[in-house]
């Protein structure tokens, strides 16, 4: 499978091993977190072929041949993704544990709905944050949407 653009071959005895553990323990990518283990909190959210997936409930056997994107692959300090940039500007994280999951869910949302309404945010961003940063996240999501569409506009070829 491809993880953040790199090819990996992984061998396991249990093909039902959640992708989360392969990502964290075998590939050393610690950004994706374990929260509940039953797909109820979203801390483990990453992308599989561009779709948001809760990796604690995703057997690694289904990842074969797919492209996985984790928070590390979304962007980094030198080149942050608009979502990460917005998260920094709005000072969203408190303890930080849930944030990668939220950012991955948000990135998936903005792919599908570039300018989501508050209702669409309510429906799609249903992860859990125990520090209560939701109000800052909402601002950050709107800001990220702006940033992303601004990027798209600058990247579009001009017709002159």
């Amino acid at each position, binding site marked *: 499978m491809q993880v953040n653009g790199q090819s990996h071959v992984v061998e396991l005895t249990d093909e*039902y091993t959640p992708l989360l553990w392969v990502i964290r323990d075998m590939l050393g990518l610690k950004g994706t977190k374990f929260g509940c283990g039953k*797909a109820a909190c979203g801390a483990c959210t990453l992308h599989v072929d561009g779709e948001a997936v809760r990796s604690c*409930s995703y*057997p690694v056997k289904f990842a074969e041949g797919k492209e996985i994107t984790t928070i590390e692959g979304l962007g980094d300090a030198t080149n942050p993704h608009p979502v990460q940039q917005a998260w920094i500007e709005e000072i969203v994280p408190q303890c930080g544990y849930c944030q990668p999951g939220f950012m991955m869910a948000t990135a998936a949302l903005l*792919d599908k709905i570039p300018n989501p309404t508050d209702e669409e945010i309510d429906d*799609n961003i249903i992860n859990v944050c125990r520090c209560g940063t939701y109000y800052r996240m909402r601002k950050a999501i709107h800001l990220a949407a702006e940033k992303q569409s601004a990027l798209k506009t600058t990247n579009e070829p001009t017709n002159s």
Partner: protein
Amino acid sequence: MKTKSYILILFLLMAGFVLASMYTPSESDYVSVPPSKKNSETPSDVAFHKMMDVLTHPRCVNCHPNDHVPKQGIEGDPHDFGMSRGENNLGFEATKCTTCHQTENNPYSGVPGAPHWSLAPHSMQWQGLDRFEIAASMMDTERNGGRTPEDILHHLTEDKLVLWAFHPGVDAKGEPREVPPVSKEDYIKAVEAWFENGHVIPSN
């Protein structure tokens, strides 16, 4: 005089004993009335009811809600986290059914799974209907997505999502989910029998 009455009493007692010992309990002459059978339940009706015993079970009805919210558990509680049908029965745009539900039951997270996990379209709502109404809905081309009886037969006996009901996996606590009251084999036989006999919905 007293002696005579003693003798008389003794005689009566002896007569009583003799008579009592002659009495042997015998089977009643009454013939027990058999419990009233439903007025001529045909094999087709029997098959119908067996099939509907499955289709009215929460494992089936939970994904045929009468609103836009999938149901879960034996109680048919609304799906956690405010999940809803979405535009195309697959959940919301970014948080879809397949964000958590994969093509197989997950033994570690307790999340159930089967191929093409989704809600049945709203026209196929079964929640709140009785078994006769469900059957009518199922055979009605206006509501069943334009399926012929042949299509429905295949759907009921071959669709992996339908047959998931018999292998519903374990929940987050590791406890097996309840299966319908009929075995998969008996259910399939009942469905085939009902269709073979002209898929007649009995009058209730």
